């Protein structure tokens, strides 16, 4: 029961994320909200110069997307490992009884 519930919950999640991309009438540039926030500041205070710069910036969009992927992959990899560990521990418990 739990598996099929998880399946439907994941399906709903995918639908929510995909809807803006495929539904007619929705859409836009899909810029990041953090950048839009920064734009809104510049609009409200024309000529605003940030008073501190990042110490290091990814040299290109490719490198930036690489680092974001690494972040997601590390996290997802560890969670996958934990789920596997929990399942094998449970199986041993059942077998030991």
């Amino acid at each position, binding site marked *: *029961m*739990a598996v099929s*519930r*998880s399946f439907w*919950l*994941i399906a*709903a*999640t995918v639908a*929510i*994320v995909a*809807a*803006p*991309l495929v539904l007619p009438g*929705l*859409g*836009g*540039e*899909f*810029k*990041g*909200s*953090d950048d*839009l*926030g*920064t734009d*809104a*500041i510049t609009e*409200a*205070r024309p000529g*605003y*110069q*940030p*008073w*501190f*710069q*990042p*110490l*290091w*910036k*990814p040299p290109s969009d490719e490198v*930036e997307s690489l*680092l*974001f*992927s690494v*972040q*997601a992959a*590390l*996290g*997802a990899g*560890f*969670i996958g490992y*934990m*789920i596997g*560990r*929990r*399942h094998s521990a*449970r199986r041993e418990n059942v077998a030991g009884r």
Partner: protein
Amino acid sequence: MHIMEGYLPATHCAGWFAASAPFMVGGAVRLRRIVAERPQSKMTLAAAGAFTFVLSALKMPSVTGSCSHPTGTGLGAVVFGPGVMAVLGTIVLLFQALLLAHGGLTTLGANVFSMAIVGPWVSWAVWRLAGKLGASIAVAVFLAAALGDLATYATTSVQLALAYPDPASGIVGAVLKFGGIYAVTQVPLAIAEGLLTVVVMNALSGRAGKADEIRVLSGEEQ
């Protein structure tokens, strides 16, 4: 929810650092105590951190035609209480500030306050309240994760409004303006985060819907 480097006045940066500091110290103390009392919870703590790591890297499209990312702090807040997420969330924000030029060091205090403090505390409060009102674990976890996510983005909107009040409509007008950028975009993503948190919580515990699901994860029960 990331306020970019150098985009908050120095006084605001200092103020948000001061506001966040006690929560981070308290969170670190709590984290140490949990690890000392229940060493078996270490791996789940790491998983809670990993969940934030993944979700905050995923920028998803929203109905407003812009993209934003979930925060993933609700899971850890429900399992371990909100305190520890101040520490785990700060690690994630530091990683993004240093390696991705996303967020910043000067704005770290403000970003920690919204993502690693307000979000988790709201998640935890919603989780407790929903449980008291008799909601099932799945429903309570969903509401906790979704509303914590939204609260983080609402906080960012307020932080920016305080720094950049609208010349005509003041702080209230600015809250509405920044809220339109952050909070409204976040509504569908918060729902997605809520659903995903239920799935991952079930998968991590391996005992979906059982009354001891959360206590198994936090290491209070084997």
